[in-house]
């Protein structure tokens, strides 16, 4: 774990930058603030755990980072692109190129085999069918499921389903992996295997990972932990408990 906290990527290479981000929702006539004046930078190759109580804005922040939602105010810059200025269709295209999503309940298509599920994001590329198959095989190999390619989700264990979901997230080689409680539906042993896999992806594939979790043991696999409460950053701790910085700021 300790080696994971030493960032091999250059410190000044910023991938994500949030400047005074605010997000509100309308509930009838009432305006509900979810995120307020949030400042955060995430470096390329980082592995961040996002923690906080329910309703603290973790998932909203993850949605903003993934281009699933737009901020109400502030600037959101990822890989030099100002996402806050993007239209809905631009965000859709951007997502396909730059982000891989991993969910708590895997969200695989039940009617498709593992390999067909992994192939889905590649349909949005210009790859030929043959090239897509090569990419899919490589992604499944990477998550250790090459021998389960022809299996349907219902024929896989929870851990295997999540590995397929990780392969789907990886297959288009995105800059950023966003994980929403990726081990929330798994037993401890399987969860540890998945977290170890994510660490490996971070370490060896240099994938930047942001993981929302309630589980401190899961968060402990990350390089950094960020706490959110009532829509603001509370502190910023190196995983393992070492307090690094409080309030808004770099991660």
């Amino acid at each position, binding site marked *: 774990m300790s080696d994971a906290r030493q960032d091999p990527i250059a410190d000044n290479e910023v991938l994500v930058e949030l400047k005074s981000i605010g997000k509100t929702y309308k509930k009838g006539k009432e305006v509900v603030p979810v995120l307020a004046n949030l400042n955060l930078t995430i470096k390329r190759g980082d592995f961040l755990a996002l923690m906080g109580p329910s309703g603290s804005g973790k998932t909203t922040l993850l949605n903003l980072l993934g281009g699933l939602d737009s901020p109400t105010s502030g600037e959101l810059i990822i890989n030099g692109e100002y996402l806050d200025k993007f239209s809905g269709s631009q965000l*859709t295209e951007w997502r396909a190129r730059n982000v891989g999503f991993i969910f708590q*309940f895997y969200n695989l298509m039940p009617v*498709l085999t593992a390999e067909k599920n992994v*192939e889905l994001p590649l349909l*949005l590329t210009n790859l030929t069918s043959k090239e897509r198959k090569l990419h899919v095989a490589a992604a499944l190999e990477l998550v250790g499921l090459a021998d389960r390619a022809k299996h349907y989700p219902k024929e896989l264990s929870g851990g295997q389903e999540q590995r397929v979901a990780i392969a789907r997230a990886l297959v288009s080689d995105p800059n950023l992996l966003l994980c929403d409680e990726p081990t929330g539906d798994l037993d401890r042993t399987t969860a540890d295997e998945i977290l170890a896999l994510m660490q490996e992806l971070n370490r060896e594939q240099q994938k930047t990972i942001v993981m929302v979790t309630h589980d401190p043991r899961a968060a402990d696999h990350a390089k950094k932990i960020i706490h959110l409460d009532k829509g603001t950053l509370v502190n910023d701790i190196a995983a393992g408990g070492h307090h690094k910085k409080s309030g808004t700021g770099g991660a």
Partner: protein
Amino acid sequence: MYYLFFIVKNLGRKKTRTILTILSILVAFLLFGLLRCLSVAFDAGAEIAGEDRLITINKVTLIQPLPYSYLSKVRALEGVENVTMANWFGGYYQEKKNEFPQFPVDGDTYFDIYKEMYTLPAEQMAAWKSDRVGVVIGRALAQKFNWKVGDRIPLVGMFAQKNGGTTWEFVIKGIYDAKEKRADTGMMFMHYDYFDKSRQFGEGTLGWLIIKVKNPAQADQVASAIDALFVNSFSETKTSSEKDFAKSFAKQFADIGLITTLILSAVFFTMLLVAGNTMAQSFRERIPEVAILKTLGFSDAMVMFLVLAEAFVVVLCGGAAGLAVAAKVIAILSDKFAANLPGLHFSMAILLDGLMAMLLLGLLTGIIPAIQGLRLSIVAALRRR
């Protein structure tokens, strides 16, 4: 191929529901095929009726006769190329159920006016003309009763002969064929002269005139001139194009076109509700999956296309199967009813109509879930999970 595979897989997740929906669409399109063919067959007489032919009947009703002298008066009118006549005979062979159309006609002029529709070998025409009790029959009628040239056919007619008897005996002297597939070959033609001289009542009258005009563009003027010729006479006339006459004649039995339109409207409206509800339900069950597709980067339009395509695949499967069954049934029926409904066949026009109906039904059943897919908010949909 991937998308088609994905759509078919999605349809297969609730096999019973999909099969039942496809079956109900199949039945709707089977009905569509059968009723449209029937409707077209009933209108076939009007469809193949010539633009250059007029029909003159008694203004009171078709069953009131016209004086035979009208024939020569009409022939003398300007714009008239040829005139012939026909009368209703209304007989049956052996049993009442064996009714078929029989007409006393003037053979020469009748076959001349209809030369683009019917063909009769010259030697058979000559043989017919030389035999006063001779008749010519159509190919379908010959096949129906297994008749051949030389057979003697006794018919019970609605007209009594001068001796009081109603059984008329005829000899088949020729068999005519259709030049156009939809032309009626289920009829029998006999000599008007023989019929007129032999009947007990009504001698010197005819049923209707058939006029061939020199210029189809002047058909209306010729029709008006004919009716004007006999205005204020004992037997005033009503002249119309053969097409209009055939249509109004068919409507005397029933407005088949209207009936089929009403039935098919009811069927398709019901189908719209059934298939539309199925598609909407199927979409609701998969909202989180649709949200995932959008999350992965599938555009709103692509998601809309996938949902619509699913509706189209269901409708096309059911519709194509329905039309295929209808075509098969019509093929069997057209052989069986060749003499009664010569125009009964599954045409390319009906197939194209069916395809249009499928596309429209697919669009209407899929459009609501497709728009829901288009507008689906990823954040809201994932929160529902």
